[in-house]
């Protein structure tokens, strides 16, 4: 069973590496992200939003859902720490002896 899992994971790894070779390189000006998305964002930031910072415009407006999710992640992290470490409402079973 262990070897089956290992073989399967190795197969997935090879598949992903093979698929990676088809991705456009990051600096390629002809890649779809650079041909379609970037000019659109630059243009819309100027015409629709009128803010100088394109990064903020993408973060807060075009990718608003993403930033909402990030805020939820941070809030959930705080809640988890609160639930794990808070001793509020916990019964004191045996007080420490001194």
């Amino acid at each position: 069973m262990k070897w089956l899992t290992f073989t399967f994971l190795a197969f997935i790894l090879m598949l992903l590496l093979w698929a990676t070779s088809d991705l456009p390189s990051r600096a390629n000006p002809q890649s779809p992200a650079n041909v379609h998305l970037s000019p659109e964002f630059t243009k819309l930031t100027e015409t629709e939003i009128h803010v100088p910072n394109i990064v903020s415009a993408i973060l807060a407006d075009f990718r608003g859902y993403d930033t909402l999710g990030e805020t939820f992640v941070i809030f959930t992290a705080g809640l988890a720490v609160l639930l794990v470490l808070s001793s509020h409402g916990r019964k004191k079973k045996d007080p420490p002896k001194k």
Partner: protein
Amino acid sequence: MNQPYESTILKFIAKNFLVPLMVVFAIYVLIHGESSPGGGFQAGAIFASAIILVRLIGANTQTQGSKGLPMPLLIIAASTGLGIYVVTGILAQLFGANYLDYAAIPLQWFNEFAGENRTNRAMGMWIIELGVFLGVASVLVIIFDLLSKDPEND
């Protein structure tokens, strides 16, 4: 821990120079998030660092509970920050647009009030950055408070 660090120059500089600078810089980063590098996350982190620095200076477990921000207030602030974000999105829906489409929210009265000429989208961005700022800052302080408190006597 009693008073051996009361008069060190490090503590003096931190209390009288660093903390006010960090608070002002956090608000600057928040407000100028659209026109220069910055935004809610960064401003929240800087503001939380200022509050945590205050707690480290007065690292006295007796005074921390009474002088620092109380935990319920911090939880309310974190929830309010997230709520501002979510409610802004729902508000756009109520005005007939998609979720988080700030262009539909009528914010022109604020432009006239402040004498500025900003689009609704820029205003909406600023509002959600404010929500992110509140959430990030209070969550960081919550985590610090919980990790630094004494579990034996609280």
